[in-house]
């Protein structure tokens, strides 16, 4: 069962990675893509996957922000705040200002905040079309 789940996750990750690579390659090229501040507030060794409903999506610089209504570890409703890259970076990764809208059901992958607050650095979002968009 666990093996099946792992395989499923692995396959999904592989498919997502291939889709992501195909999507991202024409945009990233060789250009540096880095945030304007240290990432030390996030746990870069940990990646968390979370499903939820978009409360708001703010398209702007120096970061885009995604607020997501999801569930905490106890099952209680929690609003998470995720910080993504800047508009120029996201545009290169194939994002549009309207890629994510309030009310959308999405799956996000993120590096959690090290202080335990609900949120983190957004790595990617699987948007309503099923497309996976990278943010860093």
């Amino acid at each position, binding site marked *: 069962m666990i093996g099946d789940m792992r395989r499923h996750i692995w396959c999904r990750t592989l498919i997502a990675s291939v889709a992501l690579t195909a999507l991202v390659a024409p945009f990233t*090229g060789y*250009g540096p893509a*880095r945030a304007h*501040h240290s990432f*030390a*507030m996030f746990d870069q060794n940990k990646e968390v996957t979370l499903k939820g409903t978009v409360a*708001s999506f703010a398209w702007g610089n120096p970061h885009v922000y995604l607020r997501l209504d999801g569930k905490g570890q106890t099952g209680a409703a929690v609003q998470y705040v995720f910080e993504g890259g800047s*508009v120029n970076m996201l545009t290169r990764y194939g994002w549009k200002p309207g890629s994510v809208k309030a009310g959308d059901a999405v799956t996000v992958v993120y590096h959690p905040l090290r202080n335990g607050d609900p949120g983190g650095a957004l790595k990617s979002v699987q948007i309503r079309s099923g497309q996976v968009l990278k943010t860093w």
Partner: protein
Amino acid sequence: MVSRAHHCWARGSSAAIIAVCWVVAGLSVSARAAPGFDMNGVWERYPNPVSTDDEVFGDLKAPDGGPDLREPYASQWKALLAKREAASKAGKPLVDDSTKCRPEGMPLIMGAIFPIEILQTPGRVTVLGEFLTQTRRIFLDAPMPTADDYAPSYYGFSTGHWDGNTLIVTTKHVRPDVQFFEIPHSEAMTITERFRQLTPDTIENKVEINDPTYLKQPYRFTFGYKRNHDYRVMEYFCDKSSDVVEEDGTVSMKVKPDHH
């Protein structure tokens, strides 16, 4: 009367001859290969200094290990880096100019964290940085102003000239509080850049920083760039941020629910 008319004619014909000479001279100059190369376009750092996840998420570091500073500046700079590293390890990064969206100035703009666009117009080379929508102007064959004539600024005053196919740019009058990787410098700091074309779409910028008050020897490093024919530089102003600078100088992210 005759002599005056003759004088006028003579003067007129002399002027005409001079004008013809100028045109001929001008043509022969333009017939010669103009110095320099085409720098117009959008350029990205090459090779990309930020390609792995560790590099993307890690803190940027001064090129080539940083400069050879005199004491006590060397110890002070190392202590500053150690403090920053310790804060980051503790998950509480210290605020920096970039977090505050402060213009990068010289020479950091040339580090092209995001693409830079170079425009060549008569007498001018203009560098437009995508990050923070920055503008740096290089005036060709312009005299360097004295300290009495020019107040220190973010990009300082840059004068350039072509030496064959190398564009040599000298920059002075950079504000001492505009620091490249927090390296201290004096108002007398001089930055010399040598731009050379390597292939039609790659150039190198050999940077040399001289500042005898602070540096034991010139600080040298090279930035390489590759032209991106397709990319359109975007506007970038900081207008939305949930980052909060705490009283102790650390940065955290605000996660309070939106009430809008």
